[in-house]
């Protein structure tokens, strides 16, 4: 099968891979690069578990054709912590009991990071809007919203 070369920036590192025609970004990240933090829940754009940032903006990696990220910057949950120091959002999620099964957490973190990067002091409604494309079936939305607001108070936008 003819493969296409692809280079992009992933969490401050340069990545060069060969991708299958039609491969999605999540496939390339998980199976090609080995970044397992984006999760695949639906492959159709409804659950948000695969959310990553492309040039700082949230995108669904399951619906992104891998070739379209040539030369762009991808951020995933794997790059959220600064070395051993957790991001304020990660700390807030831990302290706020904001995950049960943990499968939606990566996507929630990326969606909320995108929010805090642009809106450091969001209102509750803005937080709800920011994660409105992310489903949590353990129905833990309230602790998640609380954690994002709490992270914002602690300077979540770094």
């Amino acid at each position, binding site marked *: 099968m003819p493969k*296409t070369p692809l280079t992009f920036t992933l969490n401050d590192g340069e990545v060069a891979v060969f991708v299958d025609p*039609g491969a999605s970004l999540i496939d390339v990240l998980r199976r090609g690069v080995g970044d397992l933090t984006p999760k695949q829940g639906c*492959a159709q754009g409804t659950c948000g578990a695969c959310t990553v940032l492309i040039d700082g903006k*949230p995108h669904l990696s399951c619906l992104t054709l891998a070739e379209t990220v040539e030369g762009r910057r991808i951020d995933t949950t794997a790059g959220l912590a600064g070395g051993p120091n957790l991001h304020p959002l990660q700390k807030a999620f831990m302290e706020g009991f904001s995950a049960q099964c943990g499968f939606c957490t990566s996507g929630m973190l990326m969606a909320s990071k995108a*929010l805090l990067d642009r809106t450091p002091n969001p209102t509750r409604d803005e937080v709800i809007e*920011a994660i409105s494309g992310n489903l949590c079936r353990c129905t833990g939305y309230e602790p998640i919203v609380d954690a994002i607001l709490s992270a914002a108070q602690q300077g979540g936008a770094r």
Partner: protein
Amino acid sequence: MLSVETYPTLAEASQAMTDRSRFLAGGTLVMRAVNYGDQGFDRIVRARQVDRDIRTESGGLRIGAGATMADVLASRDAALLHVVAARIGGPAVRNMATVGGNLFAPNPYGEFTTALLALDAQVVGVNGQTTPIESFLSGRAHHRGLIAAVTVPRVSEGDFRFLKATRIKPKGVAIMTIAATLTRGDTRLAFGNMGPTPLRAKSAERALNNATLDERGIAQALEVCTQDLQPADDPLASSWYRREVAPVHLKRLLLNGGRR
């Protein structure tokens, strides 16, 4: 086996389209089909240059087909359509989904197109040919060629109404979408998810043309609002349910600006 072809311009990409091709814009429709093994196509066609420009022209607003919902929300010129774009998907979907793609979005999607139908937009092909959106939609199933832009005639902001009825708050897929331009004597009322494509409720439009917007004035329109629609059964709602609640939502749209 799937292949991906990337062309410098939209015009070249348009030349390359065949019956076994799909043009990839934002990816929210095409990649979903790819992920689920759609056997209807095996070539993905892309263009490097896409028109994401949104600007006011003499005739009204011109939106490049490659503009995303987030682009619409970021454009002051498109302020009228902010209420529509904001109701589509979550932030990630809005960063990806395009106005051009929405023209082809099947049920239960296509809210933006429903609004364009109520606004009497024109669809601009790659070759520059313009088609009224209503005829574009009626021939959509057999449409060939790529879309370059849509143009939206000037409408006063107070005359435009939009409502997306969902079961899930704050966001969910639409049971139905209603958009209306309440220009006196020239009312346009469009329903999404109430037929194979967004459809106009022409009987209700006539009843609204010179009506006052109060309980009595709209009663006739509510009565006939589903006459020109063909709602289907799907996992979100039955055809019967859609017909039953359509007047309820239309009333909210007309009297409360879409609020309960």
